[in-house]
């Protein structure tokens, strides 16, 4: 041992190359060792729930920066790093994710996108909500403006996912979840959407409640458009059910005798009360226009277009006001179609015959009261009569052979007179028209069949 001390005094010259070895070791090994420690530190933290984790290694010291979701999580992350082999010191610069009070999360939908904003408790929750939004609103851009915060109420995920589903039922609007209370506003995309959302909200997890549900139903719109160029009546929008649909289709077929009817109506709930009672007279008014549009929205009937002659405008307004249900608002924007060019009496006769071949003036059975469904046809006859102001016209009534001849004679005269009165009321001079009744004396078809009888019951216009 004594020798060892003696010799040790002569060991110093080796310190010079040793210093060189140390310098080389330090120079060569530092960076790889830091990289190795960083990789193993990151791997060790892989299963720890953190946000914005950053590991910096200087020598064997690790600087740990992250946002933790709980104090325990933060401590355990530091402990994990301290247990990584080779780590000398852990400089803990982690902090807790800020607490939100109240914890507010929201989803807003407009035409182009859905924006999720506010607070989300965990990155996994954020991901779930974004995925759910993308699945619910395929094709709509989903914008993420959520930030991570502590303080979410229990079962936040379930409640927020349910609300994301409801956003899919909105045309536009906003859903806000503030702690445990839900506020909804906006407009449902479809009829019945508002009710579907209200029903779904009953499945909110325990503890959550709806503070305000201001979701509006979309307007209940029925629309009909009469186009004289394509000779088409197009009906679109909603009807309450299939029965009402059939009734409206039948009424349109009676009132629009010459037009092709395009029926794009869909059955949907949410119709205003007495919908049918408002739509049928409004269709009658539309049938009297040359071109026009009818829009029935909630409890409002709006009709616009061109009447065939001056006197028709007040008549249409008056009949709409009389026939529409109480509480409904009627708006008319009617003008008069420019008068057509005058024609020869011969052309007039041809126009009358063509028109009456397409449609017949109808009366109540056994009576001389004109069926309101024939108003459109009569207006067209009046328009023709106005084009040959010098021609005198016989209006001839005919019946089928059922019943007594005297009754049929009287009925045919009364019906011809009723039509004449209608024309005079429209402003035509009474002297131009002669009402004639022929009873069943001039049949145009066999009176043995119902079809033949229907053809025999007629009004003819004969230009003299």
């Amino acid at each position, binding site marked *: 041992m004594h020798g060892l001390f003696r010799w040790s005094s002569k060991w110093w*010259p080796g310190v010079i190359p040793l210093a060189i070895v140390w310098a080389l070791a330090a120079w060569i*090994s530092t960076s790889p060792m830091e990289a190795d420690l960083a990789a193993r530190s990151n791997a060790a933290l892989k299963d720890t729930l953190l946000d914005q984790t950053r590991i910096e290694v200087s020598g*064997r010291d690790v600087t740990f920066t992250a946002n933790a979701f709980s104090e325990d999580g933060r401590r355990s992350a530091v402990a994990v790093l301290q247990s990584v082999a080779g780590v000398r010191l852990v400089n803990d610069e982690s902090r807790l994710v800020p607490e939100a009070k109240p914890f507010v999360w929201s989803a807003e939908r407009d035409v182009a996108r859905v924006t999720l904003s506010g607070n989300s408790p965990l990155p996994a929750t954020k991901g779930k909500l974004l995925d759910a939004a993308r699945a619910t609103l395929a094709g709509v851009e989903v914008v993420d403006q959520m930030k991570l915060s502590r303080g979410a109420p229990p079962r936040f995920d379930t409640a927020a996912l349910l609300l994301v589903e409801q956003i899919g039922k909105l045309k536009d609007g906003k859903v806000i979840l503030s702690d445990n209370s839900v506020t909804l506003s906006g407009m449902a995309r479809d009829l019945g959407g508002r009710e579907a959302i209200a029903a779904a909200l009953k499945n909110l997890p325990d503890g959550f409640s709806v503070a305000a549900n201001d979701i509006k139903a979309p307007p209940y719109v029925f629309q009909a458009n009469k186009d004289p160029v394509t000779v088409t009546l197009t009906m679109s929008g909603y009807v309450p059910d299939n029965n009402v649909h059939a009734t409206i289709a039948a009424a349109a077929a009676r009132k629009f005798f010459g037009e092709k009817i395009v029926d794009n109506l869909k059955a949907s709930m949410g119709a205003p009360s007495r919908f049918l009672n408002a739509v049928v007279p409004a269709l009658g008014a539309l049938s009297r226009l040359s071109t026009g549009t009818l829009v029935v929205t909630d409890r409002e009937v709006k009709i616009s277009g061109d009447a065939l002659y001056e006197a028709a405008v007040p008549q249409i307004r008056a009949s709409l006001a009389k026939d529409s249900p109480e509480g409904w608002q009627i708006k008319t924007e009617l003008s008069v179609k420019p008068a057509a060019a005058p024609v020869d009496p011969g052309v007039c006769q041809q126009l009358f015959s063509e028109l009456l071949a397409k449609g017949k003036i109808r009366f109540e059975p056994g009576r001389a009261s004109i069926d309101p469904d024939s108003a459109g046809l009569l207006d067209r006859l009046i328009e023709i009569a106005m084009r040959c102001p010098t021609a005198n016209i016989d209006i001839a009534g005919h019946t089928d052979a059922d019943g007594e001849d005297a009754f049929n004679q009287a009925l045919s005269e009364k019906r011809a007179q009723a039509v004449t009165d209608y024309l005079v009321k429209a402003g035509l001079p009474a002297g131009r028209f002669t009402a004639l009744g022929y009873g069943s004396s001039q049949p145009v078809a066999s009176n043995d069949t119902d079809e033949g009888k229907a053809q025999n019951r007629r009004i003819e216009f004969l230009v003299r």
Partner: protein
Amino acid sequence: MGFLVIFNWSWLLLSVLLGFAMGWIAVVHRGRGVSKRTSQWLALLAVAVVAAALAHLIPGRPGYWLDLAMLIFAMYILGCAAGSWLRERVLARVTPTS
């Protein structure tokens, strides 16, 4: 410490070999050694350095380099001791026969 040894084993082995060679030579070296007083000062310095390393007083890379220096120096001393001891044993066996 285990990590440092495993990670820098090649440098440490080099230090041991260097120490062994120096120890081997030191036994027959005729030059002047370090004075006793200087040795005491150096020993005190070594203790201070070891204390600083154990207390983690120096942070970051310099701290690592200090740990590495300490370890390399320790290996060197061990090598020196082994070299001197073995040389002394070899000389002791050879001398009586000559």
